[in-house]
């Protein structure tokens, strides 16, 4: 992938395919480290599936839980000296607390670090394609919140209006880009 934000989109799509109704996307940057955590309440995976999930030649295919996405992210993380871990609670074993957590860690100064790219566009794309699902997004840089969004808060105001209406999608785009802009301004003025 050309941008890490595309991996975020890709991994979150897996969550949605697993039936997630609440998907968390957290980017946390601390000095030279970047960690990415995607959490969902989807159906999860059995231990056997989990063991094979980062093998590029493994895919459930017919149900298409996971394909190349996780192996790709794992490779991109490891190439920088970081790594990837996946934890999952399968619905059959944990009927009330199922879901999956994917964590990827990167070293930003490494030459093979793929830039984060346009995170806003990935969040927008997720909401556009899955207007009935909720997303909690946060991007923390050195302990400070650079940007964030919780679709449950939007839904509280908007009622049953579809989140993928053009007006709302455009508003979310500006809302997130403004947050990033403000964060950038604050950083450059404090330097």
């Amino acid at each position: 992938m050309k941008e890490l934000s595309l991996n975020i989109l890709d991994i979150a799509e897996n969550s949605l395919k697993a039936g997630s109704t609440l998907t968390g996307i957290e980017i946390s940057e601390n000095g030279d480290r970047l960690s990415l955590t995607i959490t969902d309440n989807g159906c999860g995976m059995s231990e056997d599936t989990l063991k094979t999930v980062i093998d590029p030649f493994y895919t459930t295919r017919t149900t298409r839980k996971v394909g190349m996405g996780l192996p790709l992210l794992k490779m991109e993380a490891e190439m920088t000296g970081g790594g990837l871990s996946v934890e999952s609670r399968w619905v059959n074993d944990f009927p009330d607390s199922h879901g999956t957590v994917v964590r990827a860690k990167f070293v930003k100064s490494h030459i093979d670090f793929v830039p984060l790219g346009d995170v806003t566009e990935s969040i927008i794309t997720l909401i556009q394609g899955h207007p009935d699902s909720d997303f909690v997004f946060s991007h923390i840089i050195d302990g400070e919140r650079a940007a964030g969004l919780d679709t449950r808060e939007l839904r509280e105001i908007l009622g049953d209006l579809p989140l993928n209406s053009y007006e709302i999608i455009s508003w979310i785009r500006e809302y997130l880009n403004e947050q990033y802009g403000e964060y950038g301004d604050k950083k450059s003025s404090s330097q």
Partner: protein
Amino acid sequence: MKSLEELKAIKERMKDKVVLREGTGDIRVVVGMATCGIAAGARPVLSTFVEEVNRAALEDKVTVSQTGCIGICQFEPVVEIFEAGKDKVTYVKMNPEKAKRVVEEHLKGGRVISEYTITANND
């Protein structure tokens, strides 16, 4: 600075519109959004469709949605157009410029751009 308060105004504006939109959506634009599609550039293709459909005031007639792997990964980004009573059109190796042309000529003008279809690119 944008605030959640603004959403209340958007809600007010949209109330009437939503009623008008019921029972529409004759044309469906479906963008492949699996790993293969995303890696090949589907994200900007999708956002261009959303943007241009709105600009052309076609949002009552056209819905833009996403799907998983269509099964022809070497042709990604792939976009399928479904229209009642017509054959499905599959556009391949799409990019934002091509997407703009599809909105203008196909969705608005009703003319399939045959050079972008899978039939024209299948060699």
